[in-house]
């Protein structure tokens, strides 16, 4: 029998098995917490901090996705500090990346009254679309650096390690080893990275070509498997 731990979430007593995260515990009592980088199939990395919640007595907020419920803690999934952090993170995200195809971000912006044009004066991360293989395109203008693709490519799914993070700070970006084109990298085109991308930065090429208005012949020509030489 697993040990149970009790906590209070938004005024409600909750008892969950030891090892349950705050995110899971909150969802059990119908308190939804927004998430961006979190994915059921991936290790919680706690990077986006949109799921930050307040624990009474703690100095800082904690990421609900990566924090295990501790006995007798009093947790608030909404508070002044929580709401401000979520709002400002969303506002800053929208100023750095193209979030137009990230439905979660747009929905959260409504909930937290985020003004997505607040930091419009700031530098945007702009990149050329990478179209270097028949299977998927990489539009890093839409990338929010959630890191899911790197996790899926690495130890969480595929163990291929074709994708990695390069650069630092605001100019961090996802790339391949020495920026190689994907066909020259160790990528096996499993598609797991495309499957976990939350913003359409990674998109199946056929779909992308359709959106560009390409006809079937053009699509077929551009998405043929490369011939072996």
């Amino acid at each position: 029998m697993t040990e149970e731990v009790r906590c209070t979430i938004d005024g409600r007593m909750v008892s969950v098995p030891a090892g349950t995260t705050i995110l899971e515990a909150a969802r059990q009592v119908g308190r939804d917490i927004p998430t961006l980088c979190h994915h059921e199939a991936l290790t919680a990395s706690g990077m986006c901090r949109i799921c930050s919640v307040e624990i009474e007595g703690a100095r800082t907020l904690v990421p609900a996705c990566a924090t295990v419920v501790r006995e007798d803690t009093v947790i608030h999934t909404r508070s002044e500090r929580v709401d401000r952090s979520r709002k400002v993170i969303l506002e800053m995200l929208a100023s750095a990346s193209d979030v137009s195809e990230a439905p979660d971000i747009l929905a959260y912006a409504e909930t937290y009254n985020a003004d997505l044009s607040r930091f419009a004066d700031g530098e945007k991360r702009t990149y050329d679309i990478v179209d270097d293989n028949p299977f998927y395109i990489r539009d890093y203008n839409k990338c929010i650096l959630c890191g899911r693709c790197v996790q899926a490519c690495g130890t969480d799914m595929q163990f291929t390690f074709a994708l990695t993070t390069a650069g630092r700070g605001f100019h961090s970006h996802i790339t391949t080893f020495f920026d190689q084109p994907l066909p020259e990298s160790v990528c096996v085109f499993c598609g797991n990275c495309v499957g976990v991308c939350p913003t359409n930065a990674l998109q199946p090429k056929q779909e992308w070509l359709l959106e560009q208005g390409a006809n079937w012949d053009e699509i077929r020509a551009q998405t043929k498997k490369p011939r072996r030489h």
Partner: protein
Amino acid sequence: MVPRTNILGKRVGKIDPGSLPAYVASGGFLALRKALTLQPEEIVHEIMAAHLIGRGGAAFSAGFKWAAVRRETARPKYVVCNADESEPGTFKDRYLLEGDPFRIVEAMAISAYAVGANRGFLYVRGEYPLAYKRLAHAVAESRRAGYLGLNLWNTEFCFDIEIYRGAGAYVCGEETALFESIEGRRGQPRLKPPFPTTNGLFGQPTLINNVETLANVPDIVLNGGQWYRTLGPLTNPGPKLYAVSGHVRKPGVYEATMDLTLQELIYELAGGIPGGRRVQAVLVGGAAGTFLRPDQLDVALGFDTLRTIGATLGSGAVMVLDDSVDLWNVLRRVTRFFQHESCGKCFPCQLGTQRQAEIVTRLAAGNVHPGDGAALTDIGLTMRDASICGLGQMASSALLSAFSQFSLLPREDEL
């Protein structure tokens, strides 16, 4: 009376830092030798009794860490010396590393014996070539003479040290980013918990201490924790190194107990302000620190005394700015620093340091937009509350303290 001490720096500049015989002749390795005659628990007890507070900046009790790692049953355990001193305006570890490197070797050995580790890692800032050279020499000499290695003084205790050089990232001074760096990955902080005491370097229980914290250890072992507690204020005992820079006649490292006031440090030790100018502001704790006003100079430079006025001692850096300084320009440099050093892992810091620096740079150029104050406050508080590590949590500290200490921003109605 200025409460100067000469404990941490007693050998600095007095003996040849490259000479093991000179170190031994001045009492070196006596503490390690004594430690090996004691039970490890007794040493941990002395560190606890000394009330030794970590000198790296976070001001965490060293004794608690030592006791926690001691309790761990997983093997192997590691000890790590954090010599990645990168806080702007901070050069007190460098003073110890370059001036008394054998002391760090000895202190690491004592800490390893106390917590049950046999391997130590010394992570030196990449931009400290002389410190690296002297440490490498000290480790090699100690090993050659039998102060490091197998069965020291014919006891069961074996210990050796590996030196790692940083590659220039400020964030690698954060303990878990430092571990990642040693392990060969990107220098980015880990989520805590788990803490280093249980899951540190290579996932093993790890004791990580700052250089200056370790430098206190030999004297505590030799003289006891009770003796240490008599030095300076009871709550903040022991000698402290202050790195003074900026507009003072004699910048440098000064050692005193923590009842030393800022006034005494600036005017009596550092020789006062040159050129007949006045203090405009003092940045205490480096770029991650807080500003003090000229009317606050009577504050004692202790961890707790500064906290009561909303400031932090941090690393012990004291930057004095006279009335010729453009504070906006200082803030521009500070925010630019964090923009450059953010590792990019968590969103609040990755995005916040960028936007903060952009807005402050514009303000420093005299271009004020409505809503700037609210924007900087929102960004600052979001980074403080939601960032993973101390870098992001403190990246707005100087700026927000400048807002509260000096009326820097024009009010909306003045725009």
